[in-house]
């Protein structure tokens, strides 16, 4: 099993390196580049040149590249071109907001999806199942930001129960913090949960048909114990996969939902920096997003070792 873990970790690191390299070359391929965008109408050849020098853009590309790699390794992310703030600072401000939304989304999504999937599978073709299936379809047909708009409309504008703008940091109290991210979190969690729920349902249905479930029945094991002790762990394996892969949905959802609720998270940062050609910020945000995705997938791979004994203990022995 250790080989498995090491392989996955090495793979993750490799992908990250690949991402960093691509970001580097990609951003430098932008027509126009940051300099002309920044200077805009005041762009004169001299000013442009000065700025280029300042940004180190005149160095040969391999020098820039190694500088970039070193910077990354030492977590030196440079400064924002628009505000001269350290990029790290900007990101540190924005990240917790996006993370909070993501966390609520995952908790709400999984918290609803897993039980719903189980109920749906065990009551296949009954009204509960049909309802849940249709609800799941609806859920995954709505983009997170639209759900956000609807929620904001109903709970914010019409019922006036929850705030629809801005973010309250945890430091100012748990309740206010929760209030500010509940709607965005649920908005993102709904489509996510819908996908997971469908997988839970279909996976459990498949497991219930497996021969070993018949064996359990023939042994006289009760129905609830059969479901939770015999079936569930097996059924969760593909669910874990999907839940991990679809975290990308959560990330994307958070990015768009931030706009709806006026939360200055990574999404805002990304979009603004792209429009401003503020590439030190853009590249760090992209890297961060990729890193989160790559490492959550890694975590999912490692989670398998806990859930699937076949991976934990390798192959057959005589």
């Amino acid at each position, binding site marked *: 099993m250790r080989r498995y873990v090491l392989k996955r970790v090495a793979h993750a690191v490799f992908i990250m390196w690949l991402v960093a390299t691509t970001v580097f070359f990609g951003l430098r391929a932008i027509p126009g580049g940051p300099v002309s965008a920044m200077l805009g109408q005041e762009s004169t050849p001299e000013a442009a040149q000065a700025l280029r020098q300042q940004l180190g853009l005149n160095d040969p590309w391999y020098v820039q590249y190694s500088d970039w790699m070193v910077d990354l390794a030492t977590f030196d992310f440079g400064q924002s071109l628009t505000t001269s703030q350290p990029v790290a600072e900007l990101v540190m401000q924005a990240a917790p907001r996006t993370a909070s939304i993501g966390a609520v989304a995952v908790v709400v999504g999984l918290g609803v999806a897993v039980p719903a999937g189980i109920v749906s599978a065990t009551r296949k073709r009954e009204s509960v199942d049909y309802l849940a299936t249709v609800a799941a379809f609806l859920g995954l047909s709505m983009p997170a930001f639209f759900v956000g708009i609807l929620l904001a409309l109903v709970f914010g504008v019409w019922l006036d129960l929850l705030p629809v703008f801005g973010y309250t940091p945890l430091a100012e109290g748990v309740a206010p913090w929760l209030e500010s991210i509940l709607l965005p979190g649920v908005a993102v969690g709904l489509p996510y949960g819908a996908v997971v729920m469908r997988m839970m349902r279909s996976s459990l249905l498949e497991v219930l048909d*497996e*021969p*070993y479930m*018949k*064996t*359990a*029945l*023939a*042994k*006289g*094991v*009760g129905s*609830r*114990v059969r479901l*939770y*002790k*015999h079936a569930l*762990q*097996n059924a969760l394996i593909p669910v874990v996969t999907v839940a991990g892969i679809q975290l990308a949905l959560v990330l994307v959802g958070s990015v768009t939902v931030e706009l709806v609720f006026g939360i200055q998270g990574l999404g805002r940062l990304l979009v603004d920096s792209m429009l401003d050609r503020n590439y030190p910020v853009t590249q760090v945000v992209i890297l961060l997003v990729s890193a989160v995705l790559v490492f959550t997938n890694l975590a999912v791979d490692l989670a398998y070792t806990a*859930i*699937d*004994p*076949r991976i934990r*203990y390798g*192959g*057959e*022995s*005589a």
Partner: protein
Amino acid sequence: MNTMDSVDSSAEATSAAESDATSLLEVAGLRTQFPTSRGTVIAVDDVNLTVERGEIVGLVGESGSGKSVFAQSIMGIVDHPGEIVGGDIRLDGESLLDKSDAALEALRGGRLSMIFQDPMNSLNPTLTVGEQIAETVRLHQDVGESVSLPAELKRKLLGATKNSEAWRRAIEMLEAVEIPEAESRAGDYPHEFSGGMRQRAMIAMALSCEPDLLIADEPTTALDVTVQAQILDELRDLKDEFDTSILIITHDLAVVSEVCDRVAVMYAGEIVEQADARELFDNPRHPYTQGLIASTPRLDAPNDRLTPIEGNVPDLIDIPYACHFAPRCPEAERECFEIAPDFRPVGEDGHEAACLRRGPTEEQL
């Protein structure tokens, strides 16, 4: 709850056993069917079969004969939407069809147990082999361990207590089926066992509560030939050791000739012939049985040509012929299609066959 029930039924069993005439298992006129969109599939059509204490009975049939459904009917685990619609199944004199779901659950794995064809997939990959055996013990024997849902989940997360009675019993059973290093193997997962060992583990699980009857559905089909022989020997020894009667369901005549005391032959949902094993092979009477044996290669008659039975097993929906084998039978007469053949003595020691062309009347022909 479970232990209470088993105490009750064993009390009943004792009184029933006192009247020697009661067979261990008595199936009378059993009929199991499946409603489908194309019609009703009658998988088991008026089947009678008995198993006495200490016997190994073989039920032979091709795929599609209904033998697996028959086995599952006895256990009460027929897949939905199949259901038993007629006849009776008596275990030690008590009708199983009268019993409540809870009572049946108490019987399954306890007095009545079953092993399946596919050892690869019949063991749960997320539970250790030892736990799967210990679970059976906990369910049907009074070992003072709870089988409630919370207790089971706790056991799943933390593993079973290693010096509990149930676990020790599991190790004993693994030793009984000759799995080496049973104690450490009990903590292994099914994928770490080879095919033959997995089947042994299944047998260990099925016999752990010393059932009165073990039903083995194609126990050796998925195994290598050499392993097959070992498993069959195993079964025979264990039968004596645990005082368990066995009903073996198979399509393989070799298996049957190897271990069975008595044999019943099944075709298209019906039993067509029953006899002692030796008698059946020496003197098959029903045309289908004759056909089966004629199409099986034999070491003692190497130069005989193999005669296959022409045609295919019929679709079990609505067979219009009185004798289901008539269309493929070389000896069929008109009455075979119209009159349902009854069982008639055709040989020694209770050798019976359901064929109008056999039996005492034949002597007169």
